[in-house]
């Protein structure tokens, strides 16, 4: 599974990285990333997750070939 992060999250994680760990769903992925870098914890709480350009909810079951995007709150405009 691949993880892509954006914007301020790039100060805490690589922009894109391979995830070998056994995480089943979005909730577990959020926990895993928070453990990986605790100072990103507050930010991760406000992030949404997307796969194939669509937001997925907390219970989405991650699949081996998924590329999951971690989407902080928007600040466009």
């Amino acid at each position, binding site marked *: 599974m691949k993880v*892509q992060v*954006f*914007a*301020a999250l790039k*100060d805490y994680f690589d922009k894109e990285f391979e995830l070998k760990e056994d995480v089943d769903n979005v909730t577990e992925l959020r926990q895993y990333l928070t453990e990986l870098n605790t100072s990103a914890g507050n930010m991760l709480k*406000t*992030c*949404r997750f*997307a796969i194939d*350009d*669509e*937001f997925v909810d907390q219970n989405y079951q991650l699949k081996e070939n998924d590329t999951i*995007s971690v*989407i*902080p*709150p*928007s*600040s*466009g*405009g």
Partner: protein
Amino acid sequence: MKYISETPLDIVGLFADAHHPQAGAIVLFSGEVRDNNLGMSVDYLEYEAHESMASKMVAAILNEARTKWPLDIAVAQHRTGKVAVGESAVVVITASPHRSEAYAANRYIIDRIKHEVPIWKCEYFTDGTKKWGGNCNCHDVTGDVNKHVYEFDQLKS
């Protein structure tokens, strides 16, 4: 239609194309980079997007606006990359037979783009510091990252 652009927005060209024989009212919004924010002097901004996702979302927002109001024209384009003070970061153009709908749709589109579309700005200040953000903080109020407080909802229109 290109919704996300790495090059300067061609506002004049977009406006020139935004005419329609049945449209009596055209409203154009341009969001431009200010030379200051939160009391700090701004050098330039840099915008990043999840481009494929942002493009689809802007297209969907424009379509939803068309279902809510009788629009002859509804276009929007957001810049990515480095944007200088005075340059436009986002443009929204709406046109309709009467002006009330063109204004309302225009506000609706820019509000939804700002709150929902995966685009982020990083401010670079003249003192050399930078800051991500000006984030949508609606979740502080709504308790849900998917629920936003839109300006257009606060108008009766």
